């Protein structure tokens, strides 16, 4: 979103919930996420006056940094923001602390507990603690065990643990990790983060659907012909090859982000707006979701991998030529698939999901295509009337758009499609918060609405199990099709819809 002058009458009007005195403990504090997302999000909350004065951030990692070093490294990472708000940083950074901790060392946890008690006294944080596991996924379980063994999760009201994605590698490992985590803490203390849910526009799917009467009556198999969910990135693997080689697009994007959007798009209306009611409905719809062909999953999924491309002036290397990537890698950087949801509302409506790297545009959107008018009374400019579409633009140019037919000017009665749009920029003109700002605030408030519950995570993994097994056991049946960088993926992905007489929306 573009940044405009603030509406002076809007300042201070948001009814924000107030976070109780709090110490947020970040494990993996020397990692990228901490200085790129977490501390900037906390600083933003501080600037918005949403953090109480009794607040502290304790960074923990193996590196032997001091409090001052941690403050200075975080300060360097936020240099641009600090230049605009130096006094706010001065105040905020007084609440930044660092403790060298190896979660596998019991004595380190004892020392951590003592440090936290000291911070409680110093900053009056009253024992309210949010532990953020920004560590390698293989340490999620052992990290929780270590915290529990040290008694740091014993108070279910005052302690919480936030776990980054990916939560497991498949259905079995997710189940196992859930068991470990739930043995250490109550479900109400566990916050499995999916930063897509922190986006205003993702949350807006709920509001669009359930705060208006015009959409919900047609939000079903009687009116909707198909649904497309796209998350396209222009960037390649960048410096994440080590992680991405073991994950691929299916695990990195589909199982979490796209599946969460799918759940919000397809769920039944909750009885009330609270965390459990919403998560119940999301879990139910994910449990009802199936690959379009579970027996022959290769028929409903296409994998791709970007090859070199770009322009002569700015050539782009292929995935296999990226630093840190195996020259014979079969990791998918693109995946498209077809799903069905076996329930009353969605029976027979195909849901097409696609995501990829090095695609022509960076965008995320949900496209609901409505059924054709039963009788064509008018000539259409394009030969046949274009089906109505509702497009929910998640990023960029956040907003929504409805495509429908109108009479083309002239003496005849020809129809042609037009757009009616809503844009966050035009209506609100204010930048929305980064997803982590909302999600961190919610975790500290103990509000899990935008976090993923154990059964949701398991249902999401179970949905893709036939594909993951196939990739593991018979990868030749689900080959990785090369596609030129900055194109819309492999041709086989077009066939996935082409076989149904449809095509991907070209945004």
């Amino acid at each position: 979103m573009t940044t405009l002058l603030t509406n002076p009458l809007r300042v201070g009007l948001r009814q924000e919930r107030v976070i109780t005195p709090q110490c947020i403990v970040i494990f993996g504090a020397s990692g990228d996420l901490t200085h790129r997302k977490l501390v900037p999000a906390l600083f933003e909350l501080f600037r918005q006056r949403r953090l109480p004065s009794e607040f502290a951030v304790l960074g923990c990692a193996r590196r032997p940094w001091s409090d001052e070093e941690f403050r200075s490294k975080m300060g360097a990472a936020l240099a641009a923001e600090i230049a605009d708000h130096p006094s706010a940083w001065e105040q905020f950074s007084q609440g930044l602390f660092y403790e060298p901790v190896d979660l596998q060392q019991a004595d380190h946890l004892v020392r951590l507990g003592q440090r936290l008690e000291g911070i409680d006294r110093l900053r009056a944080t009253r024992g309210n603690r949010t532990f953020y596991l920004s560590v390698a996924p293989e340490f999620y379980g052992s990290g929780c065990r270590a915290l529990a063994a040290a008694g740091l999760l014993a108070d279910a009201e005052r302690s919480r643990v936030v776990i980054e994605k990916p939560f497991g590698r498949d259905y079995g490992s997710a189940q196992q990790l859930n068991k470990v985590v739930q043995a250490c803490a109550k479900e109400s203390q566990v916050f499995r983060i999916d930063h897509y849910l922190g986006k205003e526009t993702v949350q807006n799917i709920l509001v669009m659907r359930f705060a208006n009467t015009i959409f919900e009556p047609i939000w079903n198999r009687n009116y909707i012909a198909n649904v497309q969910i796209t998350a396209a990135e222009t960037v390649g693997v960048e410096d994440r090859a080590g992680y991405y080689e073991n994950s691929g697009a299916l695990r990195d994007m589909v199982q979490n982000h796209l599946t969460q959007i799918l759940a919000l798009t397809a769920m039944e209306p909750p009885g009330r707006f609270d965390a459990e009611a919403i998560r119940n409905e999301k879990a139910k719809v994910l449990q009802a979701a199936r690959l379009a062909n579970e027996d022959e999953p290769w028929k409903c999924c296409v994998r791709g991998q970007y090859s070199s491309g770009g322009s002569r002036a700015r050539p782009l290397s292929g995935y296999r030529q990226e630093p840190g990537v195996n020259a014979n890698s079969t990791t998918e950087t693109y995946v498209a698939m077809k799903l069905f949801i076996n329930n009353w509302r969605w029976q027979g409506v195909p849901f097409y999901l696609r995501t990829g790297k090095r695609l022509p545009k960076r965008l995320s959107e949900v496209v609901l295509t409505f059924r054709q008018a039963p009788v064509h009374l008018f000539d259409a400019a394009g030969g046949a009337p274009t089906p109505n579409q509702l497009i929910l633009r998640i990023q960029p140019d956040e907003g929504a758009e409805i495509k429908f037919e109108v009479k083309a000017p002239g003496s005849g009665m020809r129809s042609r499609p037009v757009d009616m749009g809503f844009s966050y920029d035009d209506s609100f003109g204010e930048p929305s918060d980064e997803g982590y700002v909302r999600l961190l605030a919610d975790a500290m408030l103990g509000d899990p609405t935008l976090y993923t519950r154990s059964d949701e995570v398991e249902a999401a993994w179970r949905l893709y199990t036939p594909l993951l097994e196939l990739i593991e056991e018979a990868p030749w049946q689900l080959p990785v099709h090369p596609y030129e960088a900055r194109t819309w993926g492999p041709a086989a992905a077009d066939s996935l819809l082409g076989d149904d007489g449809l095509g991907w929306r070209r945004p």
Partner: protein
Amino acid sequence: MSTQLTLQAPLDVPPAEVHPYLDQLWNHGLEGTTGAATFTLLIWEPSWLEQQMVRIGRIDGPIRGLERNDLIEAARLITAECDLPFSTAPMDPRLAWNVGQLAGHHEAQDLRGQFIPNAISVHTPRRLITLVPTLDASLSLETMVAAYCPLPDEGGAGAACGDAIVLRGGMDALRQGLPLIQPLIDEALPCWVWWNSSLDEPPEMLESLATLPRRLVIDTSLGQPARCLDVLVGRIEAGQAVNDLNWLRLRSWRESLAMVFDPPSRRDALAQVVQLDIDVEGDHPVKGLLLTAWMADRLGWHLIDSSPTDEPGGISAEFQRTDGTTVRFRQMPVPVGLPKAHPGAIVGLRLICEPADRPALCVILCSESGGCMRLESGGMAAMELVEEVVPLPEENEEMEMARLLGGGHDTTNPLLAAAAPLAATILPR
């Protein structure tokens, strides 16, 4: 939503034994539970209107101290009998005083302080202390104590419980009972003082209860306007965290007005305001002045002068914009047949902006009940007109209070802190 489960019927305990009794209760009677680490809520709850209406038999008892629909309806009906204008709001303290002049001797059970509204109980107060003065000024001090636990969602162990203490009696008796209160307040927890009455009441009780660092909740629609604004400003200047229910009830007006100027295409017009008109119900100007002062503060207007209008009850003022242009302001009382519960509710607002190179923009906001007709008159046709109806949800005081408790609000809202002194200055004295 957790339900309140009273563990015991409220028990009459002699004043001197309240503290020892509570110690015993928490140390022996409530094993397996812990005191909720939340807050203390200290309420001044005279409910004069409810007491008077019960006394004259216009509503049935028991007296509960909560805002009730039958009380509001009965109050609207009795306005004419009391020789007050139809626009008199049911909660206007003058109505309670006038009803007090009517004859009647009905009696009813007094259960004030013993009902905990759900909206408040979900926040699990650690301790509710309610002071309930009686109409009979000669009554001696009675104290009652009850413990309660929220019905736990899962299992029954470890519930965080609270207690409720009621101090009841004539004004003198309550004054004598004031020393009991301080030892009952856990200094480790925040303490809210809810002055649920007119600010015209004898100030010494407010002074005694609302000491720093307690957080104060008042309602500036109840009492003489000058007194209300002086209390508000005085407390803010003294560094107390003050919340004003009258200000909170302006929420939808502030939100609606901000919403009109959210689209960037209209932002410029905010710097070109030349006129602001506000209509209010009855003759209580504070709410309208707070809204005006909020706008003036946000838009950088400087007050030049204010005075009463020639027509009774109105206020006119002149502001200067940052570019030196004059902004004319006029607030007028409007007679209404069905006033809102609290005095001075806003009926409508008109803002005229005259951008240099575009047609003038007229923004009219009006309440559902009020309509916009009066504000639509006077040359609006030549302007770009934006009209919005401001929804006014029927929320009672307990809901507003619950919203405050849920939100923390450990400091005075900075918008209120900026608006209150300006509103006090606009009010002609």
